[in-house]
């Protein structure tokens, strides 16, 4: 099977979804690029991370739509089009920019169906580049998915590799509910085997990245690889772990996590967001309430500290959980 980066896998998913269904279009800042510019090279950019590249040239200006810097209007444009039958995929450049369009996501798109008594559907996808790793400091490094998970009506996807990213995005686009799709930007260049043909991965089904008996490790997005590395490093110490990548935080595959903890009796949850009201707490609380009797040790949470993301590479490296921190937590929960 060919290897593809996460960027290319997502790009391929977009191409395939747009080919298959003419109600799919992409919209966002510079998703085409060079509009209005004297070079005339419209479509040459394909998003600041290159994820939408080629779409303008293949599908034209009605289906790959550049916008002004107006995130609220972008999300509204997507949700309004979705309400009347389209399947838009909007790009919000950085997940941090949820700040300038949260109402449109949370109070509008995410609540239409409920407020309207189940009589509408809003199959819009909003893509975000999320997370740290670029020395991009406080306003360009946040995950934000933990906060969005809090809001009923939204589905929240966090792929951890190129294969999942493609299948989950194709699922997101054909899903009839609004979906927020968080692409850990540190993974855009990471490659793995990705089939050429279209496929979907259902929401709410976790992936078992490793299987083991001693500890259940749950990790999200960028943290999945690090958790895997930590687990692999501990194999020689005779510690074997389940590594669960929920892939979607909403819906959450509770059963996978609970069953694993029932077997292992130990939980380590890893996420790169800060700790308060985050996914590490969410999963830890789930287990403490629904698999309590299986637990042999305190639950372990590995997250960023309660501080904004720092700029300096050294500080950021200390901020985002690394392999050693995950290892230490696994060792701790085994102690």
């Amino acid at each position, binding site marked *: 099977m060919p290897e593809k980066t996460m960027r290319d896998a997502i790009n391929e998913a977009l191409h395939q979804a747009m080919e298959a269904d003419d109600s799919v*279009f992409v*919209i966002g800042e510079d998703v085409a690029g060079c509009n209005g510019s004297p070079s005339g090279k419209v479509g040459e950019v394909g998003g600041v991370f290159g994820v939408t590249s080629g779409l303008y040239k293949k599908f034209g200006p*009605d*289906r790959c*739509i550049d*916008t*002004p810097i*107006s995130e*609220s*209007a*972008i*999300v*509204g*444009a*997507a*949700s*309004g*089009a*979705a*309400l*009347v*039958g*389209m399947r*838009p995929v909007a790009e919000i450049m950085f997940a941090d920019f949820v700040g300038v369009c949260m*109402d*449109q996501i949370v*109070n*509008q798109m995410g609540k*239409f*169906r*409920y*407020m*309207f*008594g*189940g*009589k*509408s*559907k809003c199959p819009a996808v909003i893509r975000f580049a999320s997370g740290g790793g670029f020395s991009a400091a406080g306003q360009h490094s946040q995950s934000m998915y933990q906060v969005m998970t809090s809001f*009923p*009506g939204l*589905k929240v996807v966090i792929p951890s590799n190129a294969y999942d990213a493609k299948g989950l995005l194709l699922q997101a686009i054909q*899903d*009839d*509910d609004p979906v927020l799709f968080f692409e850990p930007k540190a993974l855009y260049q990471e490659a793995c085997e990705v089939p050429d043909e279209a496929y979907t991965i259902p*929401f*709410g089904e976790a992936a078992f990245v490793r299987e083991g008996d001693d500890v259940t490790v749950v990790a999200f997005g960028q943290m999945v690889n690090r958790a895997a590395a930590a687990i692999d490093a501990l194999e020689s110490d005779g510690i074997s772990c389940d590594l669960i990548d929920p892939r979607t935080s*909403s*819906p*959450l595959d*509770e059963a996978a996590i609970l069953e694993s903890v029932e077997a292992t009796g130990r939980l380590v949850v890893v996420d790169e967001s800060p700790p308060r009201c985050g996914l590490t707490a969410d999963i830890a609380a789930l287990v403490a309430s629904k698999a309590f009797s299986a637990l042999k040790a305190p639950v372990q949470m590995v997250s960023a500290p309660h501080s904004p993301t720092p700029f300096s590479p050294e500080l950021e490296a200390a901020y985002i959980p690394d392999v050693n921190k995950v290892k230490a937590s696994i060792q701790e929960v085994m102690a």
Partner: protein
Amino acid sequence: MSLPKEKLLRAYRQMKTIREFEERAHAEIMNGQIAGFTHLYTGQEANAVGVCENLGDEDTIISTHRGHGHCIAKGADVIGMMKELFGSSEGLCKGKGGSMHVADMEKGILGANGIVAGGPPISVGAALAAKIRKNGRVAVSFSGDGSVNQGTCFEAMNLAVVLKVPAVFVIENNYYSEHTNISYAVGCDDLKARTESFGFPVFVADGADFFSVYEAAAKAIEHARGGNGPAGVFAETGRFHGHFVGDPQYYRADGELDDLRENSCCLKNFRASMAESGDVSQEELDAIDAEVMALIEQSVTEAKAAPRPTPDQVTSDVYINYSAGSA
């Protein structure tokens, strides 16, 4: 302006329906029969009807917190709406939305909206869909004189121009946002000009006069439908009630409300205009009045008798394809 009689009768019926729906809702709120926050549209009926009489079922509107009028004008089922206000599970939104979230996708009503200026960006999306599909539809959003100061409203106007979509921005200037006058909240002297400076034509209307709004809206909608990008309608109007039911209205001048009801009543104006033109007789209008009163009475009777929602309904309708319970 001369319109077919059938259209005249319908326009009057719609305005009257809104008026009586609102006045009756008011009474039921005062009786404690209707819960929540309710904002009445009484006095502004000609705006909603003047605009919506230019629209078909396939065109969309998106409304505001003061949404009953727009929804009725666009064809929402009055009985379903009254049931919704009463919180019945047979309400248009199964009792989950209430006054601020009345919606009906079948009728192109993308919802009243509790967030000031929440609607315009969404309406631009509906307009964008129309442009992509080339289906000739337009998407109308309603905003108040207060709403136009919200960032999302500006963004929507600019984006609509950039994408040249058939979005129509209807601004109803009733002079107040809650307790604050437009002369304070809108910094510039000329809101119409500020709106036009975004790059689309805005047509002015007398919001107490159905014909004036109808004409202005016709121009704006024709502009948009014709592929020329967005357009606006700017209507001066007045609300006969407070911002919300129970508002002491400290902001009103002495006699302001009497003056409004006396001199800015679209129903009176319509009757006067019919009396002058002779297109419709006063008796015909009286007959409509009677039918409307009966309909509203029926809506309340049905709403009171309608089934109440049950606790198990709390968690349905969150998602289409997985139950909220398991989330």
